[in-house]
């Protein structure tokens, strides 16, 4: 019997290949969307980690020579003996390849090629002819060295990693060290660095500043997208499975009437679904991989811009994400089919055997209640939630609640439209559209989420861009920023640079307490740089003149909010001086409060503080020469000079890339939602005939019916878009004001981009129209006998 039932079940697909295709395609697309975004995310992070780990920068503190030069072997040995947990690094170039020599025995975990020590032969790495780790293409560029070449895809591109001894030999720098990596945990008893090695300084752990924050936003962006694509995928899978079950109701009834036990039937259908889920899941992962690979050059370019080092544009098929893709397919199938199987088990033997497009309306009230509850939960979390987890929970509640509330809202809107319609056709159109909603609701929800994601994420990225470009212009006004290690070098810098620059702006700062908040007090020189570039959120008139006169201070937004110091409020700059607030400025990314006073006021209050940082105003074309001069004549190491034009350009290009990727993902999500709609419409086409045939018989042409179907799809998409806009803005708000605050500790202003939304709405309508085009064309070409079949007895 099992065989007979199975062949009957499968026979259904053989006779209805289109239905099988929609089911598989629905599952595959949902999986593809998820795994594609995951792949991009995972790859971006892996590349980021590889780059960071290889360079050893960012994650670990470093010790460098005060003069930026080399470190002697004996100094290193002295430090180790003194208890310092340091590991030597030598760096250099061999042709196109960047050579990094490390000492694996002392290097902190995570430095060097990933997995070194597990897969690699540590002995061979250290001794004898040695080993060189790098990507295959990098290794191919190296001249013959006698060392064994090990293909290590985790290493950053154009970089080769080897034991320090081998590197020193290859670079011809025996016994030389460029820098020392500091292990994160150092023994407390170790002697001070200044006593052991007075020539060395500890370089602060670089957290990458603004650029790192941008990277974080980029990742947050993608994570949000991952979440959204997951939900969109789930809806599509759910829709595909639900329809597949509805279509087979007549067969199930017949089989049961013929005496097949329900249990066996359900077991076999579950088995069949597992098979279909596996096939579709694998196809979906492959599709997602293709999508990710197509998008990845942009992601890679983004990271290349960030780290200056090449990041591979190639995708490695990571088990984690293709397994997760399969899990989504199977999990989505399981969730979707559990409900369907349950309703099948409960189906009375004599229930209507007709596939009911409106079957999903079952429990409509329950779903509406659930939707409202979820939206309320999202609101509650927004108001009282704490922590990143609450932020993401809020996002999920908002999205799922918004999706579930769509069908009842659409129903209401169409009811109103029907009530207002006067023409007979218009009335029928609205009534019939309302009847389509249950069958289309899942694909409409997917469309809603896709549009919501588009509105939300583009609002977020655009707001980021607008805020940060303004902020960078203001904050990075000077062409070159130089840090001195001590007062003597500071004096050197002023002396050396003095002649060749338009202005030297000393940056004086001291940590203090104001408005019962820990703050940084800055002394600023009165210069056009500030007057021209700084945009104050709020200020008194003549703020700059009054600041120059020492009549008041500027505070950053953080201090204004946390310390509650509004314009005119008095701020204690030091125990002896209290000044009113003249202006408030935006200070994104800074966790601390700031107070800015005039240079002279600063000097009066903190006479011991000398400026160690300087902003140098210079013609942009002379920046390179100035760097060289400062390095040669004042001994300023390269790492102590920051070329802000480069950083600005870099940040902007990061945004452009982020945009490209976001836009591509937007279009992709929309396309998938459109495809889901096409599949629903195709599946519904036959179920819908009983609704169309009477109207046709009463005197409407097929062409007109088809046209109305097209209009219907566009109208539904437009109504869905009307809900997607507020939902998307709520999503953007949640990302900017909740998730961003929880993740980075500061809040970004939200800007609106009506033109973007308009364009997006147009795209969504286009997607809907395209999705409806083929089904409509089929209807317009449908032979009359097929429509007449509706009235035959055998229904």
């Amino acid at each position, binding site marked *: 019997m099992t065989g007979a039932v199975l062949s009957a079940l499968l026979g259904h697909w053989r006779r209805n290949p289109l239905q099988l295709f929609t089911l598989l395609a629905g599952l595959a697309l949902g999986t593809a969307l998820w795994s594609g975004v995951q792949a991009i995310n995972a790859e971006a992070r892996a590349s980021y980690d590889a780059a960071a780990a290889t360079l050893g920068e960012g994650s670990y503190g470093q010790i460098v020579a005060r003069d930026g030069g080399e470190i002697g072997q004996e100094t290193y040995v002295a430090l180790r003996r003194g208890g310092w947990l340091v590991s030597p690094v030598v760096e250099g170039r061999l042709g196109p390849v960047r050579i990094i020599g490390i000492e694996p025995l002392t290097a902190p975990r995570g430095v060097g090629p990933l997995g070194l020590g597990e897969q690699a032969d540590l002995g061979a790495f250290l001794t004898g002819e040695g080993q060189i780790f790098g990507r295959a293409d990098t290794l191919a560029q190296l001249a013959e060295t006698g060392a064994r070449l090990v293909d290590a895809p985790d290493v950053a591109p154009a970089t080769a990693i080897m034991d320090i001894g081998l590197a020193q030999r290859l670079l011809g720098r025996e016994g030389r060290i460029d820098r020392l990596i500091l292990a994160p945990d150092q023994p407390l008893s170790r002697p001070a660095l200044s006593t052991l090695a007075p020539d060395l300084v500890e370089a602060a752990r670089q957290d990458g500043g603004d650029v790192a924050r941008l990277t974080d936003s980029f990742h947050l962006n993608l994570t949000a997208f991952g979440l959204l694509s997951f939900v969109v995928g789930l809806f599509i899978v759910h829709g595909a499975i639900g329809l597949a079950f509805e279509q087979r109701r007549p067969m199930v009834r017949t089989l049961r009437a013929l005496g097949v036990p329900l249990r066996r039937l359900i077991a076999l259908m579950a088995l069949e679904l597992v098979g279909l889920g596996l096939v579709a899941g694998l196809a979906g992962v492959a599709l997602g991989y293709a999508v990710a690979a197509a998008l990845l050059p942009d992601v890679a370019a983004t990271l290349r811009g960030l780290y200056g080092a090449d990041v591979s544009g190639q995708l490695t098929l990571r088990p984690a994400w293709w397994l997760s893709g399969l899990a989504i397919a199977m999990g989505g199938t399981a969730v979707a089919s559990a409900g369907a199987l349950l309703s099948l088990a409960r189906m009375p033997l004599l229930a209507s055997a007709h596939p009911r497009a409106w079957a999903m309306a079952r429990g409509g009230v329950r779903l509406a209640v659930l939707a409202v509850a979820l939206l309320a939960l999202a609101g509650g979390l927004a108001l009282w939630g704490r922590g990143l987890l609450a932020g993401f929970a809020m996002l999920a509640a908002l999205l799922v609640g918004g999706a579930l509330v769509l069908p009842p809202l659409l129903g209401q809107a169409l009811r109103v439209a029907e009530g207002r319609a006067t023409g*007979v*056709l218009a*009335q*029928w159109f609205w*009534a*019939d559209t*309302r*009847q389509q909603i249950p069958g289309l609701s899942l694909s409409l929800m997917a469309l809603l989420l896709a549009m919501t994601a588009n509105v939300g994420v583009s609002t977020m990225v655009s707001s980021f861009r607008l805020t940060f470009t303004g902020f960078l212009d203001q904050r990075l006004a000077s062409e070159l920023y130089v840090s001195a290690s001590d007062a003597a070098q500071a004096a050197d810098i002023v002396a050396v640079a003095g002649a060749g620059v338009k202005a030297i702006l000393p940056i004086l700062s001291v940590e203090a307490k104001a408005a019962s908040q820990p703050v940084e007090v800055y002394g600023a020189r009165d210069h056009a740089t500030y007057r021209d570039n700084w945009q104050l959120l709020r200020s008194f008139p003549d703020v700059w003149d009054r600041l120059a006169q020492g009549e008041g201070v500027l505070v950053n937004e953080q201090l204004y909010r946390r310390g509650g110091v509004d314009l005119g409020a008095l701020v204690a700059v030091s125990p002896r001086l209290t000044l009113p607030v003249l202006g408030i400025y935006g200070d994104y990314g800074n966790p601390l409060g700031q107070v800015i006073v005039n240079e002279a006021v600063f000097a009066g209050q903190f006479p011991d503080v000398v400026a160690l940082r300087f902003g140098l105003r210079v013609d942009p074309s002379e920046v390179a020469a100035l760097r060289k001069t400062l390095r040669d004549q004042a001994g300023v190491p390269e790492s102590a000079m920051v070329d802000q034009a480069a950083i600005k350009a870099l940040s902007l290009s990061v945004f452009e890339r982020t945009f490209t990727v976001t836009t591509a993902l937007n279009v992709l999500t929309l396309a998938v939602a459109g495809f889901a709609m096409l599949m629903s419409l195709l599946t519904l086409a036959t179920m819908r005939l*009983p*609704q169309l*045939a*009477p*109207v*046709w*018989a*009463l*005197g*409407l*042409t*097929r*062409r*007109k019916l088809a046209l109305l179907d097209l209009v219907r799809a566009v109208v539904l998409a437009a109504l869905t878009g009307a809900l997607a806009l507020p939902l998307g803005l709520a999503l953007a708000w949640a990302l900017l004001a909740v998730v961003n605050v929880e993740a980075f500790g500061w809040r970004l202003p939200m800007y609106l981009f009506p033109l973007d939304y308009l364009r997006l709405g147009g795209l969504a309508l286009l997607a809907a129209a395209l999705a409806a085009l083929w089904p409509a064309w089929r209807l317009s070409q449908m*032979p*009359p*006998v097929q429509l*007449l079949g*509706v*009235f*035959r*007895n055998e*229904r």
Partner: protein
Amino acid sequence: MPLKGNTMLLSLRHVTKTYPRAETAVFRQVSLDLDAGEMLALTGESGSGKSTLLHLIGGLDTADSGSVAVAGIDLTPLDDAGRAALRRGTVGVIFQQFNLIPSLTVAANIAFQARLSGRHDPDRARMLAERLGLKDHLDKHPEQLSGGQQQRVAIARTLAAAPRLVLADEPTGNLDEATADTVFALMCELVSETGAGLVLVTHSQRLAARLGRRLHLGAGQLIEGLAV
């Protein structure tokens, strides 16, 4: 289109119909005339082609050859839109079942065709609903009605549009005998009041006998009278 000088409501000349991919024609060279106000019962075995013939007359399907003219309008050269106009304004079709538009209420269903053809008269629609016993069901949807009630709605809808020719394909075939008799009697009464012509397909000799004229379709040919 002007009348061709005769009073014929319906005129079939040498009509042949073959379904696509079918070996033989359903019927060949069938001819038939019907006067205005005439009521005709069409009988025949299952599969003889009664429904097919009705569909050709109603502009729902097209013949291979021969001509069909309704109220002086030749259907042969009509395109999709022309046939749709015929279905809206000139003929009214009642099928055995599934006549109604599921998304509309009973009241909206009754008014539908009349409004499409621009002949809606609320008083007449109300009168028909009352006569057919549908007064208490006007706000319901078709799925909430019994089979007999649904057929009565279909009849009301057709008659509300005041077509010149009513085509009914076993309109009472799904109903029990008593209900069928009532619905049938009502339909005949209302059709004759409007002076429209009627072509009624039925399996029931009993019902057929109540109409003025009878035709039998068999072996692809039309024969006057009931089957022997």
